């Protein structure tokens, strides 16, 4: 049974309006560019709930979906640098649930690995703790539940045909966690390689978490803030 798809458009074919999507990447680093573009072309897809650390940045990435008014709910940790999201949030067009980034990561991992909820000190005494169960261990903690999704769209540097993934540098971030957590994980790759080309010890995400793979194209790999030592 092959997991290989032709392109982004064919890999996202059954995503439906109203579904929940996880989208990998930190800022623009490691985002699933092809999938995002394919979703932006599918303007019939609306009322999407997006789980993504930044929901795009500086007018790019998932901001394409925001501009199309395809997103009605966003789960993220940071909206700074994303004026489109801030605007739609203040206008009430997008409901935003802000989640501390570590809790965000761990809730996604929990969903993927069958942990139903966990106690963390993060957020105690803040707005984040409102309505949540509190229990004291060495210090007070709040109960945070697993965060699930219908689909994940992620990008990897390398994938073999089973979906074993390898990420370059800091492009890994939330992507392997989201791959674990979604019912269907769609991976676009810079390099599609043969089975065995990624050493078994160096696989960052075992292919059992991946349902669809396609060879990506025309990557921009944009840099948000170029800072060099020669400046």
């Amino acid at each position, binding site marked *: 049974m092959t997991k290989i798809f032709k392109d982004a458009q064919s890999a996202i074919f059954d995503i439906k309006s109203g579904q929940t999507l996880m989208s990998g990447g930190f800022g623009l680093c490691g985002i699933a560019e092809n999938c995002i573009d394919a979703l932006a072309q599918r303007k019939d897809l609306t009322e999407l709930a997006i789980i993504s650390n930044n929901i795009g*940045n500086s007018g790019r990435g998932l901001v394409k979906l925001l501009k199309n008014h395809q997103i009605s709910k966003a789960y993220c940790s940071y909206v700074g640098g994303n004026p489109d999201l801030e605007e739609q949030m203040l206008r009430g067009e997008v409901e935003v649930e802000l989640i*501390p980034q*570590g809790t965000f990561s761990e809730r996604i991992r929990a969903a993927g690995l069958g942990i139903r909820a966990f106690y963390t000190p993060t957020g105690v005494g*803040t*707005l984040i703790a409102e309505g949540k169960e509190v229990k004291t261990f060495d210090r007070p903690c709040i109960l945070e539940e697993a965060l699930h999704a219908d689909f994940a769209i992620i990008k990897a540097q390398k994938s073999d045909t089973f979906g074993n993934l390898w990420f370059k540098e800091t492009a890994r971030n939330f992507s392997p966690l989201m791959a674990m957590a979604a019912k269907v994980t769609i991976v676009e790759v810079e390099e599609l390689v043969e089975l065995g080309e990624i050493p078994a010890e160096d696989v960052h995400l075992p292919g059992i978490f991946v349902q669809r793979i396609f060879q990506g194209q025309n990557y921009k790999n944009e840099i948000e803030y170029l800072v060099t030592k020669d400046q």
Partner: protein
Amino acid sequence: MSWNKNQMADEVISLFSNSCSVNLGIGLPTIIAERIPKTLDIIIHSENGVLGVEGRPAKDEVSPTLINAGKETISIAKGASFFDSALSFGMIRGGHLDFCVLGGMEVDTKGNLANWMIPGKKVTGMGGAMDLVNGAKEVIIMMTHFNKAGESKLKKLCELPLTGLSVVHKVVTDKGLFTPNGKTFDVIKLAPGVVEQDLKLPL
């Protein structure tokens, strides 16, 4: 007289111990990375998934997949490692980082910090700040002493929504170095020419 940003950064660095691990928040604290003396052997963590940030890349070594939490291009030191966000924040939450340095909007005498939203005006989100203040062994806030309206950001009690409850150990402002003591702030050090009475510290 006040400290400029570089002098503030140097004050923060003087609080670090040799071979310690440090997370630097976005905004003011980012300049610290560039001023740490190599002799200190400090390991810099960036919560987007890298331990061992070195500095800035040469123009021809820039990689779009190698950035810090401020989304700026970086270079790494030998012995660096990359990991996913769950492990990155696990390092933080698990108490493995010696210091974090964050910007602030308000710090109060109880060690409370507010730095992620102004209701009705501005929401940036907390990013990793709530995890960092509850996880790092020592939390240092680096910020200007007064806001644009001239009000002290060192308050009796924070008025803005909190980032963390009783989490701040030290505050470095352009006016000096302070520690919250429950009632007011202990003045550890003042910038040259600064007079304590002018700082409007809470009573």
